């Protein structure tokens, strides 16, 4: 095997010199020296100069893709289309839908107040105001206090939208 001095004098990036490559595989210091000058020396040094697989790259890729397809097919074939969990989920959904459809009208009956929300309860009429509704957003309505239930009731309406010549 050649010496380190001879190696470094004969070494050039991309060299195929058999003695140089032999020294490269044996000497760590010279390997580091060569890697700084030519990173590809790492592969050539370990005999990896020829990276083309047997039969060519296309054949290699085809083999890999065929394996991938085979694994995918095996996975699908190993699981049935409708498992028991999926069937149970479908049945539960159907049951919930049927039960919900039948139960919905009952829910409507439970909440009759929704259709009568604008109507005041009869009991609240005890305190029902003289003016229940007035068609103006800007009006101020003041109901004067009375001395008794049979006393004259006076209500003042202050509304800037009223005509000026009342």
């Amino acid at each position, binding site marked *: 095997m050649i010496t380190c001095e001879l190696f470094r004098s004969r070494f050039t990036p991309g060299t195929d010199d058999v003695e140089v490559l032999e020294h490269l595989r044996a000497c760590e210091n010279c390997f580091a020296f060569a890697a700084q000058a030519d990173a590809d020396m790492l592969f050539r040094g370990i005999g990896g100069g020829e990276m083309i697989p047997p039969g060519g790259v296309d054949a290699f890729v085809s083999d890999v893709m065929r394996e991938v397809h085979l694994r995918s097919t095996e996975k699908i074939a190993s699981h049935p289309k409708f498992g*028991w969990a999926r*069937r*149970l989920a479908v*049945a*539960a959904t*159907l*049951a919930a839908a*049927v*039960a919900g459809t*039948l*139960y919905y009208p*009952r829910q*409507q*009956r*439970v909440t*009759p*107040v929704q*259709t*009568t929300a604008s*109507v*005041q*309860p*009869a*009991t609240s*009429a*005890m305190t*029902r*105001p*003289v*003016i*229940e*509704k*007035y*068609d*103006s957003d800007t009006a101020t309505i003041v109901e*004067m206090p009375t001395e008794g*239930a*049979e*006393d*004259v*009731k*006076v*209500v*003042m*309406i*202050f*509304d*800037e939208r*009223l*005509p*000026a*010549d*009342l």
Partner: protein
Amino acid sequence: MTRRIALSLFLALAMCGAAFADDAAKGLSVRPFQFKHKEADKAAVIIKSLLSSEGTMNIQPATNTLVVTDRAENLKTIAAALAQYDGEPVAIQLSVRLVSAGRVEGAARVPEELKDVAAKLRMLQYNSLENLGSANIDTREGQPGMVELEHGYRADFKIGEYDPVTKSVQVIDFKLSRAQKDQLAEVLKTTLNLRIGVTHILAATRAAGSDRAVMLVMTAKR
């Protein structure tokens, strides 16, 4: 697989059956009430306090019907209350007076026909009153009404329901209008609750310090 499907079907049927059997298990009965004179939604308010904790009701506006679900003994009480509620429309006599009010210097001017309410009107700081017309209308619940008054004023309204609890009647959409250049201009529009036999004074003005006001003196009687 067949066993699983059968089990799922059984569970579904069990849920549906439980929903149907619920009312029967509680001993509830269903009864519809169709109204001739009153509105079903207002009847629902009347009987709300009569329902038991399990009782429910459903309003069908298209047929003016109230469908009540409750215990049989409770339905009897509800039926009696609704029969009384859906009675013949109550006759109402409505008196309307329109008064123009102003603030003037000097002695107060109060016409003879307004003496009965003059003391109350003075409270409002108006010392000059003018009677713009009056009308007495014989009507009944649910009936529309119209009053032509002097100085081009006119009142349109609808008599609502008489409430025996408060002894009051509702006057719905009372609209006071005034003729202006061959057209009716709306002055005010309101819905009122008038206690039977009690005089009500509505004084409308633009602001608290305004010198002019229009007053409606209204009384409803049975």
